[in-house]
């Protein structure tokens, strides 16, 4: 299909992460080299689903000159509240609210605009929606974006590195606060199903304990670790807990967080692109309360919620964003469609969307990071 490509579009699925403009720039610059025109769709697919709401009819022409002026930390296109053309909520002519399938309409609009393919920067749920659109005939390349680095197949999702850096910086501050208060700070970080963020940031700040969803925790072990340190004169502690961390003791789970999560798809996301309805704080609270019973020091919970996804991208994410953007164009040029760009250092490759969805990239028990943490004396609770 590459011979026929003249014009492509790019959009960003719901949720955010640092440095989305770098992905957009990467795609625009690479497409320009091939003589392709690139337009951006505003707010996910909403720019094309509700064209009347936008002065520019929902499409932005993205030229190399324009992208040169973009601030790498922001996102010129915006994101959708939910990026799902199959269930578009509308108010019909009778003032009734209903959800309608606008996917056909979307595909027709793309065709009428002469758009030959769409590059989408999406999280886990966005991948499924793009896969559905691909089954209906859309030429699409997806770019994985996840601040939790939980998208399967790719080694590094876009946005993770920046969030990791920011969380590390905040944990340093939390540690100082714990030190001066002579207490144990229990800090919850994002990670409903995979503990990469907690584990890697926990290693970076040499936390006393890191609790992740992949390793059910026994708080007695954490308590013993902390008491050992207190015996040597230490009076503070830092425990990192991923929001999806679970106790080995099933009864110890905070009841109210449970029924909602029970039957959810692990990949279901809320309107901000987080994994479940806003429930943040439960993990930190549970651990802080229960840990306090087992040790002499006081504990306090702290939550680093969704807002850590904001801010400026790191050098790694800037490079990665440009590479993912350019990689998506390379995929189209090579005649690929219905694939996700996959980064397995040092290579960029492409995997069919079906292989990327319905999986979560979790921390394996024998992961190098797990071993590093253990050898640094960081308690993993199990």
């Amino acid at each position, binding site marked *: 299909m590459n011979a026929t490509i003249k014009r492509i579009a790019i959009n960003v699925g719901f949720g955010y992460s640092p440095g989305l403009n770098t992905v957009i720039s990467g795609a625009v610059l690479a497409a320009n080299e091939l003589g392709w025109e690139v337009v951006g769709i505003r707010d996910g697919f909403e720019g094309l689903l509700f064209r009347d709401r936008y002065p520019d009819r929902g499409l932005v022409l993205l030229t190399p000159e324009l992208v040169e002026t973009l601030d790498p930390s922001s996102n010129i296109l915006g994101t959708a509240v939910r990026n799902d053309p199959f269930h578009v*909520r509308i108010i019909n002519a009778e003032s009734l609210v209903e959800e309608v399938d606008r996917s056909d309409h979307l595909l027709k609009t793309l065709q009428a605009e002469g758009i030959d393919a769409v590059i989408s920067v999406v999280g886990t749920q966005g991948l499924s929606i793009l896969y559905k659109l691909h089954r209906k005939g859309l030429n699409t390349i997806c770019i994985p974006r996840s601040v939790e680095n939980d998208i399967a197949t790719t080694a590094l999702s876009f946005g993770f590195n920046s969030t990791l850096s920011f969380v590390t910086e905040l944990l340093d501050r939390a540690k100082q606060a714990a030190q001066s208060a002579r207490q144990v700070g229990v800090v919850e970080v994002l990670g409903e199903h995979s503990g990469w963020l907690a584990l890697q940031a926990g290693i970076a700040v040499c936390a006393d304990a890191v609790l992740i969803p992949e390793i059910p925790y026994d708080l007695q072990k954490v308590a013993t670790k902390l008491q050992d340190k207190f015996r040597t004169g230490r009076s503070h502690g830092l425990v990192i807990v991923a929001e999806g961390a679970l106790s080995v003791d099933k009864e110890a789970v905070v009841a109210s967080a449970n029924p909602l*999560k029970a039957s959810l798809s692990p990949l279901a996301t809320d309107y901000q692109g987080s994994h479940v309805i806003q429930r943040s704080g439960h993990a930190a609270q549970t651990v802080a309360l229960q840990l306090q019973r087992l040790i002499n020091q006081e504990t306090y919970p702290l939550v680093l919620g969704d807002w850590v996804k904001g801010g400026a991208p790191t050098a790694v994410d800037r490079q990665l964003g440009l590479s993912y953007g350019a990689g998506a164009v390379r995929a189209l040029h090579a005649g690929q469609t219905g694939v996700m760009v996959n980064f397995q250092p040092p290579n960029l490759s492409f995997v069919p969307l079906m292989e990327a969805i319905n999986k979560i990239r979790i921390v394996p028990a024998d992961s190098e990071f797990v071993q590093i943490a253990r050898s640094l004396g960081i308690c993993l609770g199990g």
Partner: protein
Amino acid sequence: MTNSSTNQTGLVLNIQHFCTHDGPGIRTTVFLKGCSLRCKWCSNPESIHPKPELAYNISKCIGKKQCGLCLKPPCSEGAFYVLEGEDDRIRINWDLASDCGQDCVDLCPTGALYLFGQAMTVEQVLDEVEQDSSFYRESGGGMTLSGGECQLQPDFSAALLQEAHQRGFNTAIETAFNVPWSHVEKVLPHVDVVLHDHKLTDPERHKKWCGVDNRQILANMKRAYETFPDKTFIARTPLIPGVNDDEDHIRSVLAFIRPYHNVIDYELLPYHRFGESKYGFLGRVYELKDFTSPLPESVQRLRSIIDEAFGRSSPLEQTHELKP
């Protein structure tokens, strides 16, 4: 009643027996599926979509090793899956499972997969309602249609209500009135008591919290009060802190209803969070907002405003809880 109207089918979510808050006496409440609002506090998310819909209770799944039936055709590729690791229970990709229905549910031996919503005829519904008839006679109760929005299925609702009347039951509906007037005209002639929601007075705020403004709703209410002077109307407000638990709202509802003598009462239903897990069963995480319950003192204060308007000296004993 003709056979053709008792054969009429509608989409029923649930029939609940021995209800005491949905009209006079002991009642049987028939919940119809489909709603034309999207209230952010809705405790019945399963009643919103006007089609049968797949739900999943993971605690009933026996896993891929023991069963795994839903992982094969006819279930569509990618709709059901298992994650790596010990837990081999099914997970649902709700975006790919949107076409799954009866076929998938029938496969599941444990009932982990099930459907919300069932097509029923007027006769089937009434036969079930009839089982409680002795209680109605003693308590002055009857049948209540609720939802969702029961007036979204106007022909079915009208036929149900008419048949209930024929069988000698008192009839009531719970409605938000966000339907075309032509629906109201069909349904209301067969209703004795109309319990109707005044959720928010300001049109823009109504749109923000319920998905659409309330112009059609208010016009319908006014017209209903005027067109059906012999019907009993009871206004209600589900009281949600920070949304509509203010005096202004209560007073404007009172100003709206007091000129009409057939609106005999105005009830406040303090919000209580329940139904949360059902959002999970439907895979719909992003809709429910985390509301708290109103404080008893503020409910009491607002109720006394209503009592005053209705010329009641002592506060009415109202212990109702929100049943959308």
